[in-house]
């Protein structure tokens, strides 16, 4: 009869105690798993999306908001910048590549981004079918957009005004899908890319009155004439490291625009989220600690009741070491089950959160596993050993002659 089976049967001879221990460990592990997965995924997404972008130039306002709207497509833009001024910056010797963005419309909540072909090389985009946009009103869509909105090459759709809901559809101009992107594992999977001209066209380039969408116009590209044309923001890649020091200062001091560094703002964002994550982490650690104590108390109490059982086992030929390992094994089994359930629960919870998340850009995925989870498993097992060690030593040292004589 294997030691595992003996320990296993003994654990389940008290199902409520066992369940309580497992529950506590599972709960603590689940919280830690969610935190671990969520922060890894968010960090990963932030890194991937801002990988080659050194600076974002946009209208004055919150730099974090500018970064969120222009790189992660989460928040609303800070406003618009005049095209003429933006073009001057694009020609600066510090700039290797500058990509203009025009935001303001959506299709069923998917953001429509007006930009030029520099965007393709910036993100290293490839199409899986069709081609990249060229003319106005041609659209190349992200892989997820094609799947979720059920769009194929050749389909047409109407853009809606705003960034999140379909209101005030631009019924005058239909977009035509000309290509679908290969999954890029970044924001572009969830975007509709088109020429800047398309976005301008939507907003009255052809003399259409824009009286009827006068409400919250912040961040939308509107005006018709060349000198009045606007971008939402510019994504900039530096030519040389020197630019890091010079260029943002120049933008902020000499123009009416602001420059925001994705790296700096991401760090700031993380330090904001970090406080919450830290608190939750301590909370989970506390639960794990309580779980460890609970396992310890459980084993310790049952040891008192079982001292005679253990003495009998010795008379049957079990060595001291065997009893020691039986108790340790019980601790390990409890925490192993708890940790495994906790990790599974964590993934489940994260997946559920992902399903209810509105922003498709920061969507969590509960089906991704990372190697740090092995540390959680190891930590769980360590807790099992630590909780069981004192009872195990007691079982090892017990004087069987005395125990048997007493009964």
């Amino acid at each position, binding site marked *: 009869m294997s030691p595992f089976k003996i320990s296993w049967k003994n654990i389940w001879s008290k199902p409520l105690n066992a369940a309580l221990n497992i529950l506590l460990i599972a709960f603590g592990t689940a919280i830690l798993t969610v935190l671990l997965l969520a922060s890894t995924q968010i960090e990963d997404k932030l890194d991937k999306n801002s990988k080659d972008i050194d600076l974002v130039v946009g209208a004055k306002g919150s730099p974090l908001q500018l970064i969120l709207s222009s790189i992660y497509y989460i928040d609303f833009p800070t406003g618009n910048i005049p095209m003429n001024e933006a073009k001057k910056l694009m020609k600066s010797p510090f700039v290797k590549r500058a990509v203009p963005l025009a935001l303001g419309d959506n299709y069923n909540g998917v953001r429509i981004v007006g930009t030029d072909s520099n965007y393709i090389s910036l993100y290293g985009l490839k199409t899986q079918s069709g081609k990249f946009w060229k003319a106005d009103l041609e659209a190349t869509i992200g892989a997820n957009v094609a799947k979720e909105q059920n769009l194929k090459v050749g389909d047409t759709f109407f853009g809606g005004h705003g960034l999140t809901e379909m209101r005030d559809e631009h019924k005058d101009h239909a977009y035509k899908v000309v290509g679908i992107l290969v999954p890029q594992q970044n924001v572009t999977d969830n975007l509709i890319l088109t020429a800047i001209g398309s976005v301008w066209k939507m907003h009255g380039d052809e003399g259409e009155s824009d009286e009827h969408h006068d409400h919250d116009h912040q961040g939308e590209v509107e005006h018709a004439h060349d000198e009045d044309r606007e971008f939402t923001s510019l994504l900039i890649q530096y030519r040389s490291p020197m630019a890091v020091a010079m260029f943002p200062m120049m933008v902020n001091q000499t123009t009416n625009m602001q420059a925001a560094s994705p790296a700096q703002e991401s760090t700031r964002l993380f330090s904001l989220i970090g406080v919450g994550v830290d608190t939750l982490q301590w909370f989970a650690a506390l639960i794990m600690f309580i779980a460890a104590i609970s396992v310890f108390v459980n084993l310790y109490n049952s040891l008192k009741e079982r001292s005679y059982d253990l003495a009998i*086992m010795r*008379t049957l030929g*079990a060595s*001291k070491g065997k009893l020691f390992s039986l108790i340790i094994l019980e601790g390990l089994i409890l925490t192993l089950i708890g940790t495994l359930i906790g990790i599974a629960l964590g993934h489940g919870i994260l997946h559920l959160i992902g399903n209810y998340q509105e922003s498709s850009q920061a969507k969590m995925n509960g089906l991704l596993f990372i190697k740090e989870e092995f540390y959680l498993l190891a930590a769980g097992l360590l807790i099992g050993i630590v909780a069981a060690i004192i009872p195990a030593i007691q079982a090892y040292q017990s004087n069987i002659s005395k125990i048997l004589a007493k009964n």
Partner: protein
Amino acid sequence: MISIKSVSHQYGTDQVLKFADWQVNDGEQWLLLGQSGSGKTTLLHILTGLLKPTAGEIKINNTNLYGLSSKKLDEFRGQHIGIVFQKPHLIKSLSIAENLLLAQSFAGLSTDKNRIEEVLASLDMAHKKNAYPQELSQGQLQRVTIARAVINIPTLLIADEPTSSLDDKNAEAVLTLLKEQSELNKATLVVATHDKRVKDAFNLTYSLS
């Protein structure tokens, strides 16, 4: 086959318990008589390798019991000595058959289900194989502990006050079973008791004063 020579034991600073030398041959059936407090349990624990005496030597099958390492001694006990305690005690979380399996594997022997069937059948308990200890009566539990004591075909079968909490009829039944089983398994039997009802069943007696 069992010999104890100049054995004595002292608990703390208490009086020293001295045991007369004793020689038991293969297959004999002995009564170990003594009032409570006379050191009966102490001697049984010394005999079974559970308690190292302060002085003296115990040999079973020509093996010097306390010359063995702790682990070897546990194994030796599991393989060669079967013990029946006053109160039948089984592991509650395991079924009857599993309790017997446990005795086989703890002794370091390979598990043998046929042997378990055989022993349970010889004690008329085969039908309770898959039952759990709390489902059995005291008498049935006592039978299972006897089964557990003989499962590994021990050379020495020791019973500590097996009849003290039983009525006349059951006491006699248990004694009969012990004698039967020791003969069946060719084991030497030592029954420790202060129960006068048991005396007549044995002709060899070791008395403690």
